[in-house]
């Protein structure tokens, strides 16, 4: 996927905004700075514990704006519907989008609907685009990590990916794993209020924490060291991962933010995170280093070190 984006899209549409490879592009208009982004949602199943494709489409785009420190304002929504999709399902999804937009404080101000013959889409696909304002003095981007910075996360990793996988494959565990999908602009706002000098914010969605941190290491030309014993993972998520042979570091999240913060602001940001509803379990998980630029390493529980590579292709369950 990364290779495809680099060789096909970035080179064809070549411009400095795209070349930054951030969650959204930040540009200036009449002296003010705006952030803009777009994302398509094709999740299967369309309903999963903790959310659905509609709320996800709002949260995802709102979060992509928030990851540049922007205050999201308006979003648009495009729907591709497969002929035969139950009206009741569509209504449920649209209501959930409306609810998610209300909670995130954004308005859906334009939209488009297309219907395609049965089999040409899988129930429905949604594309959302969003726009927001970047407050003065805020400069957040994947290229800003510096040696000595601290890596923070706002809670447990892998919840969304395992919730979707368990529902899709009909895997039942004692307690149902719920997706963490949430709009993070409120949390990010209070983090920036506590310390405006945050270097990087990134939501570790597809490819999980490991892939997102590799992208940041590459963009900033720094090394990242994680500490295994500090990684927050729910017991049921860990159990499901152990059973299937998956590594939670590569499992998708939808309500998580990785923050890379200068040491001097780390405590202030961490306490702001902990006092927000979506950040109660926030913690430090690693640090930015100058050695091994472009790479992520993990110090294991028993004191060894290993590389944490980018996710290549899809993570597949093991055989035995």
């Amino acid at each position, binding site marked *: 996927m990364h290779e495809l984006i680099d060789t096909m899209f970035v080179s064809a549409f070549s411009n400095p905004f795209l070349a930054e490879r951030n969650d959204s592009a930040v540009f200036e208009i009449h002296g003010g700075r705006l952030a803009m982004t777009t994302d398509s949602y094709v999740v299967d199943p369309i309903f999963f514990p903790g959310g659905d494709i509609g709320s996800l489409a709002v949260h995802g785009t709102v979060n992509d704006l928030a990851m540049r420190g922007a205050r999201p304002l308006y979003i648009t929504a495009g729907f591709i519907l497969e002929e035969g999709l139950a009206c009741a399902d569509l209504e449920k999804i649209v209501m959930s989008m409306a609810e998610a937009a209300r909670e995130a404080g954004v308005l859906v101000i334009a939209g488009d609907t297309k219907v395609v013959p049965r089999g040409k889409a899988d129930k429905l696909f949604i594309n959302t685009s969003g726009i927001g304002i970047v407050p003065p003095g805020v400069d957040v981007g994947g290229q800003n990590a510096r040696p000595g910075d601290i890596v923070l996360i706002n809670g447990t990793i892998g919840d969304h990916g395992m919730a979707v996988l368990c529902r899709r494959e009909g895997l039942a565990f004692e307690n149902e794993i719920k997706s963490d999908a949430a709009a993070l602009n409120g949390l990010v706002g209070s983090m920036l209020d506590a310390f405006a000098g945050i270097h990087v914010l990134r939501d570790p969605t597809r490819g999980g924490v490991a892939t997102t941190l590799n992208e940041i290491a590459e963009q900033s030309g720094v090394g990242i060291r994680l500490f295994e014993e500090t990684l927050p993972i729910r017991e049921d998520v860990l159990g499901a991962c152990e059973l299937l042979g998956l590594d939670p570091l590569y499992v998708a999240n939808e309500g998580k933010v990785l923050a890379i913060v200068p040491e001097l602001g780390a405590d202030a940001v961490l306490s702001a995170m902990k006092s927000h509803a979506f950040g109660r379990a926030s913690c430090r998980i690693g640090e930015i280093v100058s050695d091994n630029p472009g790479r992520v390493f993990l110090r294991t*529980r028993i*004191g060894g070190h290993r590389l944490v590579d980018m996710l290549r292709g899809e993570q597949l369950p*093991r*055989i035995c």
Partner: protein
Amino acid sequence: MKYLDEYRDPVLAKSLIERLRRKAFPREVRLMEICGTHTVAIFRSGMRQLLPPQIKLISGPGCPVCVTASEDIDRAIWLAQQPGVITTTFGDLVRVPGSSSSLHIERSKGADVRIVYATLDALRIARDNPDRQVVFIGIGFETTAPTVAAAIQQASKLDVNNFSVFSAHKLLPPAMRALLEAREVNLDGFICPGHVSTIIGAGAYRQVADNYRVPCVITGFEPLDILQGICLLIDQVQSGRAEVENQYRRAVSWEGNSTARKLLEEIFEPADSTWRGIGIIPKSGLAFRPHWKKFDATDRFSMPEITVKEHPGCRCGEVLRGVMIPPECGLFRKVCSPQDPKGPCMVSAEGTCGAYYRYGER
């Protein structure tokens, strides 16, 4: 988490590592793990750098996808190409390159290839699609084979006639003996597979320990399990013993799981089988017993003769026999990577090349 945290205790782990470091090693000790899950667990824990340099951990033929012969990969691909067939398999296999294609490529060309998590899922697909032929590609060791046998028994009970299995299963103890017979790699001990041993029992390694004088320790998969297993092996080596010891008692008994074995023996019988990189090993595979032949995909479909074409530079065979480590292969990292694998050891999550690549081991 119960049964996990206590086996990941950093303080205990450090004390075991210290114990090993305090030992005097007059010579190198070479231990082979023959389970892909062990290979990955060792890499993930970063254990190699912590052990005394005289202890060499060598990865053997323990990854089920990796040991599957190229001709069997080609046969699976041929099955997927047959009109109306739904091919079901475990995840890793789809990306293994055959002579000129892979199940993944066939799927993108329109073949119906589905990844399942259990053989019974494949049976369910067969019941849901009574007008299609559903083939399950059965690979793996003694751990997964009984579940395949159970699915076949179930298919017979339910009279599901559109379900069949392509059996490329492998048995581990014959491969251990073959490696020792070949004398290509000098081994001082085996870290024996925890999962396989739950079925075959610790007793299954007695012949290896007695006849070849090589210590065998059955080991669990957490860092403490593996470290303790290594300590037991080193103790044996240094005191000149060659015994079967069971570190993984919470899961493995001396006899193993007789119910699973009985089921396996009812459906299958041992047969000669080709292993990638090793060749034919007598009685190391599983063939259908006559009564169950109707579920054998090789009987149901008349397969053509297969001529195998492997990537000329691929050294997966040597890696699987433990005579070469991945960075010594000319393709490793240069043209062979998880994105574009040339051999199975790079494809599989449990493959040795993939582990060296992903976890940055030099």
